[in-house]
């Protein structure tokens, strides 16, 4: 079966839902939303805690409520949704191959495509923890799915490695469900997750957070029986003699997220080694004309509000692209990460829209900082810069019109 559409959106999490709504609102008439699961909403469905949409809707929603609000908005449009539909290929000339039990093999020719596949979790093999390979080792998100969707408790005596937000959220969730969370161990000397999660998920339940610690061995034959914890030095190497044995039946890993770009690679989209996502312009366009990106497939964001904001931009741009003749001038300049900047999104500026920059600091600065964007020489003040809290700044299009070369972003102490 072959279909032709204006805009095809891949993935129906917060990024994809917002992109589809905005593509339709911008004027694209044939918008198709492809979702591999049986329901819309993506990972929001299992994020049952509150704290979503504070910025976008001025409401303190849980994940499912946030998703349902977006789905209700989507239902006011004529966007067509295909559930249980797995995209297996995207080509550079925007032909999508997808499979579903209902429709079999599908070929979708799209005038423009929005990538909204989200991210996946880093696993034990990504970080290489030595020891045996027993049952009872889960990524935090998998444990979250077991508890919140399937209704199973994955274990009773839990150690959490890594202080990413999902790990912190699961520390509280498992405690509420009657498990004992012994502690959260973080290799860095600062936490990975948001401060409010440290307070509300760990401190509230007297769960200790051990910074500069890692797991150096997993023990157990059939099931996890314990782990060895070691302190690490300034170079993140385990300190000899600091080993400590801890009994547990479950190990959760909250050690980072990776944008899910297997499909992007097939379309020949150029990826950024730092973010793991496509190299993107402010319009959310990737290196392949007519293919746009948004949400966590682009770079891993801290807040759903940021994800939705990029979704809106991608949907709008994709609709614009679908309705116009291809742009001749694709001139763009690079945006370079300078002093104390670990990564940036987007990393190119193409002279179409205002530049909304998401910046992650390399090192924490607990005093006032200035974010310098040069040219045009904008200086934006912030009370602090922390690697676990993305900074966002907006540079109006008008200020960037005369630009010739690259833009550099620095974070400096004030």
């Amino acid at each position: 079966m072959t279909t032709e559409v204006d805009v095809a959106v891949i993935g129906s999490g917060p990024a994809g839902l917002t992109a589809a709504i905005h593509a339709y609102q911008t004027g694209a008439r044939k918008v198709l939303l492809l979702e591999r699961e049986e329901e819309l909403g993506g990972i929001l469905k299992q994020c049952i805690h509150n704290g979503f949409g504070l910025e976008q809707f001025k409401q303190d929603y849980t994940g499912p409520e946030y998703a349902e609000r977006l789905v209700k908005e989507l239902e006011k449009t004529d966007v067509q949704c295909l559930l249980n539909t797995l995209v297996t290929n995207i080509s550079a000339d925007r032909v999508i191959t997808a499979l579903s039990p209902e429709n079999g093999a599908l070929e979708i020719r799209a005038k423009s495509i929005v990538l909204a596949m989200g991210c996946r979790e880093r696993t034990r093999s990504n970080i290489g923890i030595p020891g045996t390979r027993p049952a009872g080792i889960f990524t935090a998100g998998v444990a979250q799915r077991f508890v919140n969707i399937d209704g199973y408790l994955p274990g009773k005596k839990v150690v959490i490695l890594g202080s990413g937000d999902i790990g912190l959220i699961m520390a509280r969730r498992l405690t509420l469900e009657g498990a004992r969370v012994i502690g959260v161990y973080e290799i860095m000397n600062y936490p990975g997750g948001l401060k409010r999660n440290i307070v509300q998920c760990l401190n509230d339940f007297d769960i200790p957070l051990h910074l500069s610690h890692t797991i150096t061995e997993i023990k157990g034959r059939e099931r996890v029986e314990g782990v060895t914890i070691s302190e690490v030095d300034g170079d993140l190497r385990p300190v000899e003699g600091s080993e400590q044995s801890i009994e547990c039946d479950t190990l959760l890993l909250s050690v980072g997220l990776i944008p899910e770009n297997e499909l992007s690679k097939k379309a020949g989209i150029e990826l950024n080694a730092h973010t793991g996502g496509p190299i993107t312009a402010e319009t959310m366009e990737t290196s392949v004309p007519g293919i746009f990106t948004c949400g966590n497939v682009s770079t891993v964001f801290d807040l759903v509000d940021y994800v939705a904001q990029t979704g809106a931009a991608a949907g709008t741009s994709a609709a614009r692209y679908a309705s116009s003749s291809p742009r001749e001038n694709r001139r763009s300049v690079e945006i370079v990460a300078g002093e104390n900047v670990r990564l940036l999104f987007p990393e190119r500026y193409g002279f179409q829209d205002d530049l909304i920059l998401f910046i992650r600091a390399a090192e924490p600065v607990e005093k006032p900082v200035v974010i310098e964007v040069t040219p045009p020489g904008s200086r934006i003040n912030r009370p602090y810069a922390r690697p676990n809290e993305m900074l966002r700044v907006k540079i109006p299009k008008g200020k960037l019109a005369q630009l010739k070369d690259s833009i550099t972003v620095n974070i400096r102490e004030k």
Partner: protein
Amino acid sequence: MAVEKRHFVCVVCPIGCEIDVVHDGDKIISMEGNKCEKSEEFVSQELIEPMRILTTTVRIQGAMWSVIPVRSDKAVPKRLFPRIMKQLRYIKLQAPVNMLDVVVKDSVGTGANIIATRTMPRE
């Protein structure tokens, strides 16, 4: 009541001020480290009774999934979380359930209702 010192991290906004408070029971004598006045309200409430929104799941029958997410419709005393959790352990809903449907009225005398946070149609 004796004068005591306590450390708080304010969660009113993302800055997360680290605050040292000297207090006598629930009366604040002095506080240090907060960048705005909103922290005062937060700290006084923390001294009187820490209040939080509870989010969890309850069992459901006749739906695509075996549990459905719920939350308290307003903040409840944190110390009552175990009691509310225990109450919810015995609840079994029947699909269909609509988002914001009341699952438990006035849970353990808090005045807060437990409400569903998603719609779950009948399978």
